Structure formats: C-alpha cells, structure tokens
C-alpha cells in the first residue's frame, strides 16, 4: 500500500476512535484494568491447502516464516458447529456451539468472553472490543441473551468496513458513480453516514449508545476522508479494519480485543485469485498487528494473540461448489489451524493433537484467571495457564 493512502486511512481511524473516546470520558476514568492482554484474530474461511499446506505457503509468507517459529501452533483445529460466520464467531467467543440465526438476528445464547471478563473482573466497556470486517455479523455478537449477563457487560462492536461499503452502495443507489479523476463523489456519502444519529443503522454499534459526532471531530474526519478518496490505490475493507484496531489498541489498550477479517470471502463470488489475494492481505495485516503489539508499551510483553480461520472452505468437486462456500460436512471445511503467539506460549512448538474452536474460550478465561465456568471445552495445552 502506498504511504500516503496508509497515512490518510490511519488518520481517519484515529479520528473515529477520538470521537468515540470523547463521548465516553467518564466511563474510561472509572475503569479497572487488567494487566494481561489477549487478541483474537479470526480470518474468515480459508482452506489448509491454501494456507498451511504444501502449495499454500506462498500465500502466507509472514505467518509461515516469521511468526510460526515463535508460535505454539495447532495444525488441527475443528469447527464442529454451524460453519456460518455469525455462529462460528459466537461459538469461539462463548465456548459453546451456537445455533442461532445465521444473520445475527439474535444474540448468542450463552455468555461471551466479553461478558465474563467485564462481570467477573469489573472491567470497563472500553476494555472489550470486537472490530469486524464481516458484514454477516451484527452488533448483537457483543453480548449474549443470558439474563444475568447481556449488553450491560457487552463489548464495543464496530464495523469499519461497513462504513465504506454503505457509502459506496449509497452513492450507486443515488446514481452517482465514483469517478476516476475525482473519487470525491464518494466523500459526501461517507460523511452522510458519519452524520447520522446512530451508528447502528450502518452496522456500527457501540453497545447501543447514541453516537452522534461533535462538529469539531466531524470536520477533522471530513478532512481525512477528503484525503482518502483522492488517492488512487485500491481500498480494502480489512486494511481499514486493521487501522481502526491499531488505533483502539493505542488509545484504550483493551484487555480483550477480537478482530475479524473478511477480504478472502470474495470466494463466494467465484474468484479464486481474489480469494488468495484476501489471504495474502490477512498474512500481512496479522504480521503488522503483531508488530503493533511489540511497539505499544501497554501490550509489549504481556499479550497473547490467537490467529485462526473461522473454518476452511468446501472440497474441490463437492456438490457445494468447492472453494466458493463453507457448508460441507468435510475436514476441508471443518478442520483448520490456529497460531498462538506471545505471553502465554511456553515454547515455540507444533501441537498435533486435535483441538476444537470451543477450547479457546476456557483457555482465554484461564489467562484472565476466571474460574468455575461451566464450559464444554478444555484449556489448550502448551500455554502458561
């Protein structure tokens, strides 16, 4: 990515987080902080053969050559639940296989890690975030429908990519195209989105609070967007999600941050080359995220980061049309990998025993010394927990 565009996107991300912070100063002041940090990165659907397998390594050069040698690596991670995005992410976050509406109409049916952390540790809301590229999720993913938990203990959930998508789609719906010499035709659309009373209509939600922008911040964001749309490089949603995530890390250093990337989901439309491009973007962004962890004092030396695909994709030759989809009951779809980096790693090693997605929740709970949770999964081996 060219430096100018990156700086502009960074500035836009910073301003968005600024705006969020301004409206929550009092909450931030009373927070209790945990010293330990956990980041979970869920990366859409990618097959082992396109990532950690012969022929796939070329798509993940940084994960394979630079991060793997420092990681506890689990090559066999099973998703035994519903292999849709909303159910998978909520299963990872709750440690229970979720079987709720695929399009996020209902909240997870058991408490999320965010709620456990905030309730048991008394953490403030700005200590638990979910930042997602995936349009299949909704803000309901941040808290369960369980009566003793729920939104009062939920995470901040934001969808940066959705802002760009909605702006572009809205422009198209109004018959306005994004022109070659002047991409500023999309600028008013983004600004209009930011000017709305509440982010929820955009797919943005900061736990149900009203999030209108003050004039000062709005002006600054408009300036940043103005710069952004005048660059000519392609824009990827995952890049913007990453920049917002990095900004959240710098400002709030949340104890638990979950990021989901989704550029590789272009596979649903049948372009294998663009799907592989999405995997390469994730490889680069995860590497940069880990560099951020080293660079930010609040994270350096006390962070454990888990990186895992949500699922694989269907087998070539399947009746479900191979890599396009992720609904086949096969190992190609259900079995992926997970990389664990940082603080909790006893030593760099490959742990071949199969594990399940639902093992991640009790593991993270242990990292935060949350005990007596009634969860079906087992804490992962090879970690200091």
């Amino acid at each position, binding site marked *: 990515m060219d430096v100018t565009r990156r700086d502009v996107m960074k500035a836009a991300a910073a301003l968005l987080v600024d705006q969020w912070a301004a409206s929550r100063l009092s909450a931030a002041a009373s927070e209790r902080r945990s010293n330990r940090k956990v980041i979970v990165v869920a990366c859409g659907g990618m097959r082992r053969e396109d990532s950690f397998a012969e022929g796939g390594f070329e798509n993940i050069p940084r994960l394979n050559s630079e991060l793997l040698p420092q990681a506890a690596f689990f090559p066999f991670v099973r998703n035994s639940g519903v292999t849709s995005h909303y159910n998978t992410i909520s299963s990872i976050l709750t440690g229970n296989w979720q079987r709720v509406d695929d399009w996020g109409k209902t909240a997870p049916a058991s408490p999320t890690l965010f709620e456990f952390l905030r309730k048991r540790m008394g953490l403030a809301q700005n200590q638990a975030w979910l930042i997602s590229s995936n349009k299949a999720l909704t803000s309901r993913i941040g808290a369960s429908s369980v009566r003793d938990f729920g939104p009062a203990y939920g995470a901040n959930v934001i969808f940066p990519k959705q802002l*760009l998508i909605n702006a*572009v789609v809205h422009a198209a719906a109004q018959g306005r195209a*994004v022109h*070659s010499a002047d991409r500023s035709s999309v600028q008013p659309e983004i600004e209009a989105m930011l000017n709305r009373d509440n982010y929820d209509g955009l797919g943005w939600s900061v736990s149900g609070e009203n999030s209108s922008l003050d004039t000062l911040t709005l002006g600054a964001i408009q300036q940043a967007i103005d710069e952004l749309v005048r660059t000519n490089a*392609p824009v990827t949603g995952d890049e913007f999600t990453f920049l917002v995530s990095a900004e959240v890390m710098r400002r709030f250093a949340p104890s638990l941050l979950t990021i989901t990337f989704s550029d590789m989901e272009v596979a649903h439309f049948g372009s294998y080359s663009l799907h592989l491009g999405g995997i390469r973007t994730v490889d680069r962004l995860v590497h940069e995220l880990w560099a951020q962890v080293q660079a930010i004092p609040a994270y350096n030396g006390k962070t454990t980061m888990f990186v895992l695909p949500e699922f694989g994709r269907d087998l*070539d030759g399947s009746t479900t049309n191979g890599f396009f989809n992720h609904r086949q009951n096969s190992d190609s779809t259900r079995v992926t990998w997970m990389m664990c980096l940082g603080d909790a790693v006893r030593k760099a090693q490959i742990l071949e025993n199969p594990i399940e997605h639902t093992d991640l929740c009790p593991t993270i709970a242990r990292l935060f010394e949350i005990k007596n949770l009634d969860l079906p999964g087992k804490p992962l081996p090879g970690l200091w927990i």
Partner: protein
Amino acid sequence: MTRTAINESRAGEAEERATLAGYKRLVARLPVTMRPSLTQQINAWESLFPYERNRLAAFLRGLDSFQQPALDSLVRPLLALEEKMGVARWTFSQTGDTMENASQLARSEHYAEWRREVQRIFEAIDSAGRDKAEPHALPMRLVLILLPKSLPVAPLAEWKPWDPRGQIFHIAGDAGSLSKLLVDGAPGMPGIGSLFNSASSGDSSALWLIDADVRQGEIAGQPAYPDACCLDYALLKGFRDEFLAQVNTVPKNIEATDQTLAAMRRQDWDKWLPAELKGQPRLRNFVIELFLSGNGALIFSNAFVEWAASEALRRARPRALVARFGLRSKPKPFTGIAIFENQQRISALPDVDDPEGSAIDALILARYIWLAAARYPEAGQTLCLCVSEYRNAACIIAPQGKGPAWTPDRPVTPEEVQAWIMGQLSS
C-alpha cells in the same frame, strides 16, 4: 389449429394435471423435511428438462411401489429425528426450498444425522423406481472446455491433476480453430452442432453452448444452432444488471429474503431478456434459478460459465456441453469492498482487464466443470477436452481404455483431434 387438435391438446393438459396431482399425493407420504424439494420440482414441471422429468417420475414410481407398512418402516428413523429436531415448531415451507428451511436444518445439532437419513431413504426409493430392464449402452458424451488465448494459464504440466486418465498433448497449428471444427464440423464430418440438435437427438437439451463473452468470437460459426441451449454472460448484461439491482434490495433478514426471491421467480423479466432467450421459457427459468442460487454467476463471467455448466450437467445431462471462459476486469477502487455491486454503476473508471487473475480463476473453474461431470454415472461415457489456446495445448480425459494414442512429444493437428472425437461420439 383444428378443433380435434385443440381437444387433444386439452386432454393432454388435463392428463398432465392429473399426473402431477398424483405426484403431490405421493410426496405427502414422505416426512415433512423431504417434501419441499420434490414439491418444488412438481410445481415447476414446465421448467424441468427431460432428464429431470424422467428422474422425478422414476423416483415417484419407486415411492408408489412401497406398501404403507414398508414405507413406515423406512421413514420411521427420520420421523423420530424430525421430532427431536423440533421441525413441527419451525417455520418450514413444504412447497419449496427456502433459505429459512436450509438455515433451520443446518443449525440443528442433528443436521449431519438428518442428511444421512434423507440420503438412505432417497436411495432406497430411487432404487425401487429404477428401470429393472437390462441397461442399454449409454451414448458417448462430450465436455469441451475452452480457455481462450487471452488467458495466460500456467503450462499444462503444472496444472493440478484433473483425473488420473488425463492426457496432455500439444496442438499443431491454431488451437483456436478447434472449437469451430468440433461444433460446426468440416466437409464430410459433421460437428456436434448437427449431431446433437434436437431433431437428431430427440432431446432439446442435448447441446449446451455456454460462453463468458461472445465478443471473443463465436464459438460456433454460421449457421447457428437454434435448438441448442445457448447462454452468454455478455449478452445477458441488461438482464443481469436489473436482476442484481433487485437482489441488492434484499434486507438482512432470512424471511424477507425468501419473500423477495420468490417474487423475483414470479416476475416477468421479458423486458430485460436478450432475444435469444425470449422464446425459451425453460432456459429463461434456468438462468433465473442460476442467478438466485448465487455462486458469483451474477458477478463474474467465469463464475457464471462454471456454475451454469455445473447446473446444466446436473439438471439436463447433455450429450455435449461447450464452456468457454473469458476475461474479467480488475476490481475498481472502492468496488473491491462492495463486490456484490454493479462495478460499472459504482465507478466511472474504464474497465481494465485482469488477464493473470482471470487465468487463475478460469483454470480452477475449468477443473470444477470436469469434477461436476465426474459426479454422475454418465461420466463413464464422457470425453472431456480442455483446450488452452494460449499454450496451444490440451488435456483430454477419455473413458478407461478409450484414450487416443497421442503423446506429449508429437503435436496433433486440430483436424486429427476433431476426427478422433467425432469418431468416438458417433460410434
């Protein structure tokens, strides 16, 4: 039309209505979760290809052959499973496959078990309905896949193997002439266009020509084949644009989506259809179902070619299918994040071809077409020829023991290839 002919026609229609009503009564004997797909097919009888009609009729004949106690015994485990799954409490359509149905089934913790049970019952009934007479020899079929010169695909020796029987060979001369030779034929040697037209084959869905972009040049020369099922992504542009615009109004809600999609099925699309499709209601419905089933058919030309070919193989089992891939444009700024939108509408930037990306896409999708064909019993009598015009080379998969005696070191002329393939198809 004479009075007698009109009366005969009416009598035929009444007979068909009675038959279909009988089919519906048979389907009602099955557990609830097996009904939607069968009922949908019966309701769409007019849109079914001959193969589908025969298959459905054979299945229902099999169902009819079961005495009630035997059928009760066969479906009992599925009924128990439906009880455990709570199907009675679901909003479950029995008249057609819906997203809501699929979503409820897939979310059930008993889904895998349900699939196994349905498969078991289906196989038992299907087996009962199969023709017990001595199977007659199946005719030879052809799947011809064309990767045009614009696609810089990798050398064939580096391709992921398609099939252990695959043979690679080089083409002497212009590989681009092969498609025309095979479809149109040459003096004294008919092509598949005349061999498999409906008059010769007795099946109006025996020949399919599916193209990413006719502007690459006609697959077949003149005369065209009005009997063939011809689909061209580029020619469908007006229809696609309107269809996509309506798909994009679908809200993030399964029930509402099902309603919108059902309305789109019923809609009159004639205004947007290319002339080639207007007089062909069955093919028009095929395209609508293709677009509604996703898989990128509305978005990328190569995804359209692959998915249309796979669906044609599944639904029509053609004698010959020709699929030609093409170029797609690079995603434009901002459109990469809203890929489901119409790129031309979002961005005024001119389209820029992406030959390298298109070649990667086309190569895996070409293999998918063969893998789709290989799923069916007809694969045992199917020749598959994939031609890379860029490499002036091809890969042929022939039934066991019937491959040509060509070797990679001796280039084969297009005329030799044509003669050998037409010889196989005519034998």
